[in-house]
């Protein structure tokens, strides 16, 4: 299962638009995706409520893990980019 740790680029953290974009992309990937703070319990990345409840703020790191599948690596790369970008700029 490919996984990567990424620093959150959005000023508001994983909230509002950045969180919605991540959840939509994870849900649309067709693969099971989890997200969590490193060393803590990871949650379903396709659940907006679960992602919000992580309380991730700007500058925090999160670890994204994608279940094995045909395109796991490209899905992971796409999700990492969403999280690293500041969408409010």
């Amino acid at each position, binding site marked *: 299962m490919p996984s990567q740790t990424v620093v959150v680029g959005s000023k508001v*953290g994983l*909230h509002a638009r950045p969180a919605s974009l991540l*959840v*939509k992309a994870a849900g649309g990937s067709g693969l099971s995706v989890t997200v969590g703070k490193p060393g803590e319990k990871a949650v379903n990345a396709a659940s907006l*409520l*679960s992602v919000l*409840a992580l309380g991730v703020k700007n500058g925090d790191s999160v670890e994204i893990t994608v279940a094995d599948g045909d395109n796991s690596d490209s899905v992971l790369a796409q999700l990492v980019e969403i999280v690293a970008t500041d969408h409010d700029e």
Partner: protein
Amino acid sequence: MNNLAGIGVSPGVAVGPIRRIVQVTSDEPIAATPREVFNALEKVAADLENAAHHIELDIAKDVLGAQAMMAGDPALVEAIGARLTDDITYPDVRPHVTDSFSGFKAALTALGGYFAERTADLDEIMNRLLAKLSGTEQEALVLTAPSIIVAEDLTPSDTAQLNLQFALALVVEKGGPTSHTAIVARGLGIPAIVGCAGILDLEEGTTLLVDGREGKVYLNPTDSDIESRQHREEALRARAAAVVGPGRLKDGTHVTLLANAGDAAGALAAASVGTEGIGLFRTELLFLDSQTEPTVAEQVAMYKSVFEPMKGLRVVVRTLDAGSDKPVPYINAIHEENPALGVRGWRLTRTSNDVLSRQLEAIAEAAKGIDIDLWVMAPMINTPAEAQDFATRARAVGIKKVGVMIETPAAALHADKVLAEVNFGSFGTNDLTQYVMASDRLDSRLSDMTTTWHPAVLRTIQIACNSAKTLNKSTGVCGESAANPYLAAVLLGLGVNSLSMAPSAVSEVRGFLSTVDFAQCVEAANQAVNAMSAEEAELLAKAVLEK
């Protein structure tokens, strides 16, 4: 002409018939099977998705889109499924549904700030779900003619269902200046009044004149009423557009106009409306958005982003004003029976002393190397000893101009001693009004009491201004009251030196002040402090100022 009053949150004048939006609430038991609950939830998600697709206002589109996602959230479906495990008709699913939402609401509330605000979305989804299950859902609201929308309060999904191009004005019984109703109205540029008691008692179709600048609703107005209100509104707008540059009264007296800001975007807005700087930099935002105290380095970066656009100008920084209506979970941890009277503002030195020390250090560090006129003040200073404590600590880190907020009756009545310890004072008129009048400013039932126009409030300000004059200390106002042109003139007449307001209010206040002499301001203030009531004070002051 009968009238009703509330809080004007979006200026403008409109005339038209009432169209009432009825929101049904009920706690009747709802019998349903788990399948019916899930089907209803899917329909709620689809409705919200559809509404998000159709609404034109970007801000509401985002809110509705997020609500649609939450309604379809697998974790929510799982939480409901865990409470409705049997394939039977439950006699009342209401408590199970409520329970399913409460865990998520508690988790978001605990995070504070932006996250806690999302609990309103969960309430909205839950209410829609229960309404769908119980068959009390409102019919789609179609406005067929230009109307004044009247409701208890408007939620994002209410406004999404309305074809708002026919909305002339919004008047709601509840809500405050930052409620969804206010934001939508300002976005549409139509007048709006919130906290308007009695508005729901009026008959559908009654013709109203709504003055969103004054927060007044007039029933069955005559043609001359309408004409005079519209004329005044146009004159105010024209004047606001015509005057630019530093604030000046008609007789040439200089008035320092400043803007309130909370972040870099606010600072840019303050700079763009041609003010002499920021009169209130609220530093809470960074703290409210975090789950733990922001580090000194994070604070320095944030403060610098506000200082940079203000080069050559004044910036008045207010130290952390956590507590009361702005609790920060990791600082205001203890439940208070009376948070407005509790440990808030500078009083936090009693419980979180180091947080304030680190903040002062960060403010001083951030200002290094940036050419701004830095003023720093502490909120909720009550006594000379507190003023001295703050001044000593701020000066120790190299801050030259130190001041206090005057927002308690104690600080105002004792200003001759409190201000002696510092360089300046700044009236926080929102809190000063609620403390002088002993009336919660968030309680719309008491909105007639929580007006700065009340002579008791104006007298309190006058006492402190007189002390400041004797001591030769500068005073400012940084509450909502400075944004009201008439009240701004009265405050100048009482002896205030600077006015700080939302950037959007600056041009109108500047325009109005250019039409009055200082002698008129003094006379208006004199009449207002000697009035019997807030209404009379406002009437008398306006009569003098419009001469």
